[in-house]
């Protein structure tokens, strides 16, 4: 199915409030992009369920869940693919920066469990009722979310120097 059909099908199933808009290449300022649908973050859970279990959508492979820091708000990008129907779609959920919460999709795709934990670990985007909401790559007592643009490198961690000031050029240049 083409991205427009998918968009219309979702719009008529979930209505205006949840499915915001569809963007095709060279629209809304994107020269190059895969067609994506902007979605209201908290609606992600049942949207994911519908996307997977609907007969003619059948998005059974969740390729990738990535977080993006857009300076004013945080965005979670889902790339989905259907093995049987051989079509793909990209869904974006944009959440406010101060309290970013997105509905979890861990119950529909098994891989989403870890991918969402990694997004939480790197960006600090909370996933509502995620089964195992822990950090996956960093230790639990690591402060800050590293992949945010305004992240300051820690000076010490558990007594070990993380960013020492050596005479050969500065470590951890914060740019």
């Amino acid at each position, binding site marked *: 199915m083409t991205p427009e059909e998918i968009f219309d099908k979702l719009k008529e199933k979930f209505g205006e409030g949840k499915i915001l808009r569809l963007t095709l290449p060279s629209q809304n300022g994107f020269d*190059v992009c895969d067609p994506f649908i902007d979605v209201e973050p908290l609606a992600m859970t049942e949207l994911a369920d519908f996307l997977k279990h609907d007969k003619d959508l059948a998005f059974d492979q969740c390729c990738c869940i990535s977080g993006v820091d857009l300076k004013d708000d945080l965005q979670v990008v889902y790339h989905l693919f259907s093995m049987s129907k051989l079509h793909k779609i990209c869904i974006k959920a944009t959440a406010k920066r101060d309290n970013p919460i997105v509905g979890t999709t861990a119950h529909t795709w098994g891989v989403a469990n870890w991918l969402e934990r990694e997004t939480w670990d790197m960006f600090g985007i909370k996933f509502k009722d995620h089964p195992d909401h822990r950090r996956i790559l960093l230790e639990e007592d690591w402060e800050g979310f*590293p992949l945010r643009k305004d992240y300051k490198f820690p000076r010490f961690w558990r007594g070990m120097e993380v960013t020492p000031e050596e005479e050969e050029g500065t470590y951890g240049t914060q740019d």
Partner: protein
Amino acid sequence: MEHKIETDFMIINMGPQHPSTHGVLRLELKTDGEIVMACRPFLGYLHRCFEKHCESLDYLKIIPFTDRMDYLASMNNNWAFCIAIEKLMGIKVSEKCEYLRVIVGELNRIASHIIAFGTFGLDIGAFTPFLLAFIQREKIFDLLEEASGARMLYNYIWVGGVARDVDGDWLKKTKKFCQEFKPALDEVDELLSLNKIFVERTANVGVVTKEMAISYGFTGPNLRGSGVNWDLRKNEPYSLYTKFDFNIPVGAGEQGQVGDCWDRYIIRIRECRESIKIIEQALEGISLEGDIYETVPKNFNKMPKGEVYARSETPRGEMGIYVVSEGGKAPVPYRVKVRSPAFCSLSILEEICKGVMISDVIAILGSVDIVLGEVDR
């Protein structure tokens, strides 16, 4: 009065330093004697902040860092990253570079599969097949070092082309390698694959059904092990893969059920044979004229604004690179996210390792074939 003995679970840390966790992965096993009740993997012991580097290094400088992600198949990492950037910038790579990329990528796929089924044999206890296979890997290292200058981390495939040219006798050496490799692979296959003890240890162990495989993001040999006929080189062909005819080995449950450890193992061996076929056809097709820097962009000043998600087939599965670029004169990408196949296929460990024995956990971990550099990025 039948007195029930209260047994308590033992929490074992198959810690970051363990001979068969393929690097620094910690499995926290809750065991009742030999039977594992629950297994929680802990990652992050090799998290080297690759994605933070991508925010402050421009495109040409990221390529050596992609080598260090999946350090067993670094050529395929370069290739995956370059495909994404070429799709973003709309560059069409010259014919000669595509041929070189296919030859070098398939050589690296064989080298990575050698480590995969070699260490799998090591986990089950057979030392010799690993060392016999490693000899072939050294021969591949000689070839790739002559082409790119380094043994393992090549920085060879650049955006839009290839770093160094090769000459005629390198192609002859590759052809000679292909002839020598086949008998050596058959020998390792004969030594290990049908060995009764090996089959006993791996058949019907860690069975992954088709639906569970797709839902847990299995790709590559692991997905084909569960019987799904899906290979990006065939189903979503990129580069010159439409020109070569090779078939895709799919798990058929010869020794046990479909999707068990033995299937995932035997697919890797058969894929090596297919890669040899591809290399031989590519060696015929390549023509040595043409400059390799033809389509390499001089500078990254006129970048389009937008984002791209490109997938390509690495030995461990489908590596997806999601690049967001602000466009204009920014030589530095805004955000690069790498969908690592090993990270996704490792997430199934929690699901499968219930009610199996400790030695099976090792067998399953070995058959899923993870590399911690790529899992933790």
